[in-house]
């Protein structure tokens, strides 16, 4: 519900979706609310159709969204790639459930984090953000639309079942207090306009269908005119720009929250529903005199590489509780590059970590840090 309200506040006026546990509530809320604001809700025949309709609606000028969970997210992967290469602003919400396959429809997982990064074929960059509470479902969905409109890219809201089903108070600010960003449209005359020619920002300024520009938009590798080209040079130019468009603007995209990082020997790196038990574990460990801090990743992709690299020189170890068997932990380990230990606290899904499990993981890591010191 908070997610749907956030979408509406951000200006979302099209929702194409398909029922799936545990994401159906978003669609149901949108079905009820969109007609009242002059928007269109349509339940499509499957998730492939849902994402295709969302892309079409986005080119019609609407802010468009779909929501799904594991199996549906898998079905959306091909058209996610279409959204990336055609630079279509839209939002895809994934309320993650246990997998693989039908898995645990009603229970929590964070198993799709790498799928969010690499799920569609080809090499590309994507933006994925991860809310950890109903308030963040609201706030981050607004941010997802703003990022999508700014960078012309599908933005993934990677929530999980626990966050999706948590019921608590959400503060909705007045409309004027909400920052809403709309996509830029070209001012140049159609005769001299090149749709995929960009300035230093590397973000193209594109019109909507019906604006008189006679656009050609294709999933094929295309040049600045938008026309398909079959050669290595065009491929390099396009794919490089799609990657750098996000890489160069990382600072504007990456968002995180820190707790007691100053002087921390151990840093918990968390996101989604793992944040709360990790915060609880951190507080009790700190009461026991252990120097533990917490990094809460609000943006997952692009990954906060520079931050982890910097922190790896200050702390002794990173502890990563995840409701999977190591996805974001791999990224942390890669960026730590041996300068600090990375300890994964896995969870197969179906629930989330208890604060005790996380605290135990931190204590084990402390012992490992100590024994490493002795060896030296």
């Amino acid at each position, binding site marked *: 519900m908070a997610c749907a309200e956030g979408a509406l506040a951000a200006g979302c*006026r*099209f929702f*194409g979706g398909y029922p799936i546990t545990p994401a159906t509530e978003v669609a149901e809320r949108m079905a009820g609310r969109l007609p009242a604001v002059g928007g*269109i809700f*349509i339940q*499509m*025949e*499957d998730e*492939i*159709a*849902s994402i*295709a*309709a*969302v*892309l*079409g*609606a*986005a*080119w*019609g*000028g*609407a802010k*468009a969204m779909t929501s799904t969970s594991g199996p549906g997210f898998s079905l959306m992967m*091909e*058209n996610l*790639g*279409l959204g990336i290469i055609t630079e279509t602003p839209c939002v895809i919400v994934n309320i993650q459930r246990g997998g693989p396959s039908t898995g645990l429809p009603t229970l929590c997982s964070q198993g799709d984090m790498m799928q969010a990064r690499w799920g569609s074929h080809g090499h590309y960059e994507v933006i994925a953000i991860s809310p950890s509470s109903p308030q963040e479902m609201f706030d981050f969905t607004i941010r997802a639309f703003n990022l999508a409109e700014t960078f012309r890219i599908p933005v993934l809201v990677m929530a999980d079942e626990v966050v999706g089903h948590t019921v608590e108070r959400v503060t909705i600010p007045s409309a004027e207090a909400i920052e809403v960003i709309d996509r830029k449209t070209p001012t140049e005359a*159609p*005769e001299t*306009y*090149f*749709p995929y020619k960009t300035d230093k920002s590397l973000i193209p300024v594109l019109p*909507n*269908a*019906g*604006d*008189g*520009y*006679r*656009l*050609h*938009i*294709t*999933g*094929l590798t295309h040049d600045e*005119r*938008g*026309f*398909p080209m079959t050669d290595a040079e065009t491929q390099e130019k396009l794919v490089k720009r799609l990657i750098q468009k996000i890489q160069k603007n990382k600072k504007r995209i990456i968002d995180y929250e820190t707790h007691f990082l100053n002087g921390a020997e151990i840093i918990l790196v968390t996101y989604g529903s793992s944040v709360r038990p990790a915060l609880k574990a951190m507080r009790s460990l700190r009461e026991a005199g252990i120097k533990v801090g917490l990094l809460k990743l609000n943006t997952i992709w692009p990954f906060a590489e520079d931050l982890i690299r910097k922190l790896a020189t200050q702390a002794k170890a990173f502890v990563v509780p995840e409701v999977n068997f190591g996805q974001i932990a791999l990224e942390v380990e890669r960026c730590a590059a041996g300068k600090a230990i990375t300890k994964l606290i896995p969870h197969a899904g179906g629930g989330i970590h208890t604060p005790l499990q996380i605290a135990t993981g931190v204590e084990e890591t402390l012992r490992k840090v100590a024994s490493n010191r002795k060896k030296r």
Partner: protein
Amino acid sequence: MREKTNADSYRHPKDELLRGSRIPHIWCPGCGIGSALSAAISSLQKTGIDYDQMTVVSGIGCTGRVAGYLNLDSFHTTHGRAIPFATGLKLVKPQLKVFVFSGDGDLFSIGGNHFIHAARRNIDLTIICVNNMNYGMTGGQVSANTPMGARTTTTPYGNSEVPLNLPSLAAACGAVYVARWLSLDVRRLAQSIQEALEKPGLSFVEVIAPCPTAYGRRNRLGSALEMIKLYRENSVIRNGVHPDETVIQEGKKMVLGKFIDTQRPTFLESLSGVSELRETMWPRKSG
């Protein structure tokens, strides 16, 4: 990017709707897609609709390339997904005339489910399907519209599957306009596409087109000219027949014509009238 138009006196009247810089096109000599596109351009010109308010959506395949050649807002989407893409576009911008131009493999093999539901919903789209009875772009594999017994690269001993009958499928799903023509019948085809474009709701035009390079060659149907001659000799125009009678099969003449021309509320019309409908179909219990 809008194509510049030269004021050259020798320009063809249809050039205004073609992207000259994209020519030569990728289609083989004798391919029927060109005739189908040419007929479609005539109809687009006759509707009098502002070209800036027209949008074409294609999927993947030989016919899928139409979007790249038409000088309109044009979307070349993923394989099989032109219809749901067009659905989203049309619903948020109903003032646009949105039409889908794609092949039989794209629209009815991989994308068949989307056609069924778009027709059921009566989304205001015109769908033009070039049926060349195989997957041309990938070198001639069997499609859902390959006739029984026909040879393709993936049916080297002949196709053992029964093909779809597209007019019958379209009619059963609720399309308000259904026609089938040969790519040879350019005038009738153009007339039909124009009627389809002017019709509110989901209209469907099937174009039977020769694919001499892949389908024709493997089935020894001769040159493009011989193929289309064969199609003409083995077809009959029967306007208004029941779509179930239009099955394409060995020993039976291919039935061409306009089969359905009716009307019912479009998706958006039904959407605005839904509360009223609810009251009549599910009246509230009194007391």
